[in-house]
């Protein structure tokens, strides 16, 4: 499939960023911990997954507990792009643009099967979607599911934090369960 549609795939996003002004390891380490603890997602829903992304911020799952509270509508002020949904070919250039508009330390979560690979909408002679957001922008964490549960998105957030700081900050669910007993 990918070969057939090669000519229609959008160009890959520009990933060049500025060098940090203070490029010292300890400073960056502290900053990275801070970044991991305050990942502000962008309000950027594409399809069904956006509803689960809303649930992720709502009272029951409450992403605020882990610092990912402030959903910013402007890409300039957000750190985390949650690509929640199907990327149609019409939308693809805009996803690239939003990625490029986000200032440098930024992470991308591909939420749901559509964002990972096109999901259920991949079939012979499909004409409208991009099969995976990683064809157009670099992705840090993939969360499978159609749509993934909000818990899955929380786990994805933890994985971004792990990628940033090198360690997992919150106990794994099994450990949490055993510690209760």
């Amino acid at each position, binding site marked *: 499939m990918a070969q057939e549609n090669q000519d229609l795939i959008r160009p890959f996003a520009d990933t060049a960023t500025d060098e940090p002004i203070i490029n010292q390891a300890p400073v960056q380490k502290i900053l990275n911990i801070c970044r991991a603890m305050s990942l502000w997602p962008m309000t*950027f829903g594409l399809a*069904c997954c956006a509803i*689960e992304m809303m649930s992720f911020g709502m*009272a029951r799952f409450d992403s605020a507990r882990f610092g990912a509270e402030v959903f910013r509508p402007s890409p300039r002020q957000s750190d985390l792009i949650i690509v929640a949904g*199907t990327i149609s070919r019409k939308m693809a250039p805009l996803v690239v643009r939003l990625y490029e508009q986000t200032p440098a330390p930024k992470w991308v979560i591909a939420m749901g099967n559509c964002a990972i690979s096109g999901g*259920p909408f991949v*079939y012979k*002679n*499909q*004409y409208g979607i991009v099969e995976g957001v990683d064809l157009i922008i670099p992705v840090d964490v993939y969360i499978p599911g159609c749509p993934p549960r909000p818990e899955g998105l929380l786990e994805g957030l933890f994985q971004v934090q792990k990628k940033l700081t090198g360690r997992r900050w919150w106990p794994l669910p099994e450990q949490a369960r055993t510690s209760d007993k």
Partner: protein
Amino acid sequence: MNLDLRLDTSGDFYARKFQPTKREDTLILNMGPQHPSTHGVLRIILEIDGEYILRAEPVLGYIHRMHEKMAEVMSYPQYLPNPARTDYLHGLAWNWAHVAAVERLMGLEVPERAEYIRVITCELNRITSHLLWWGAYLLDLGAFTPIMYAFDDRERIQDILQRITGSRLTYCYYRFGGVSNDIDDRFIEETRKQCSRMKPRFKMFKDLVTDNFILRKRVEEIGEIPADTCRKYGATGPVLRGSGVPYDVRRAEPYSVYDRFDFNIPSYDTCDAMGRYLVRMDEMQESIKIIEQALDTLPEGDYIMPKAPKKPKPPAGDVYFALEGARGKIGFHLVSDGDKSPYRLKLRAPGFSNLSLFSEVSEGVLIADAVSILGSLDLVIP
């Protein structure tokens, strides 16, 4: 420094088609596709004079997902999970529409218990859809808290539905000739509990939000849609009922067992955003009434027809099946050539027709009102 702000949309196909008028003092503003109040990925090109909108043109297709093409490629059972993804807030209604269209075409009988289960689950899903609309609409108007309260109830209903259908959002529960599994006592008990929990909460919602004077000022007499405009554009659902026409598919062409229940069709002839708001708030209470009646009279029997075909091959011909979704009339036009996959499937998404009147209604209103109107139409863009 380039200060000619009128020019910088020229790189895009739709913006080129949307040329500014001859006036010099207008601004072309792109709302969306990534904009918090366009709910997903609708884009609206506005020509504004100050804050007044002179022209508005919605541009859609940013989540066009080829459902019609997919139906032609896939067989009927393969296509089962997909209709729910067309309108992800009221997935069960679409699931139902697909299943029912095939059943009608084949002349399949559905056991009574299955029909009751369908009614109960579909109405529960309608409540979740309206609750989400309510929260999101108030978010559009700048009040953040109601959505949290709405999601409180929504999550509870989703938990109930999840146990029985197996998913939280994009349901695939109905099968040709019935439903995929039976409901149990726990489901009935939880549903009853949730229904009795919801009733006082509607009063709280009214006291807390609906009676707020700022909200009233923001929605009353905003976005007046006369009934005739609705007819010309084919708008249905709460948009139409908010314009004073009590037209509901559940009553107008009763499908399933809806003709056995006693419920009102709320309608308000104020034609404004408040009317649409109140229609939805009332509809949730009517849904609870239907659910309780259905639970009281739930018959015993099969939940799926014992000899339901796994791979249906309906006879050649076409069928149009319409039912009432949370956003309006859902239509399935299914053309079959007697093969295992449809020859042609046309989906009538209610949001499509409802949105098409936006450009007429939004002429001459403020940007803030346009957001209010857009929210009151309750869109899931196809």
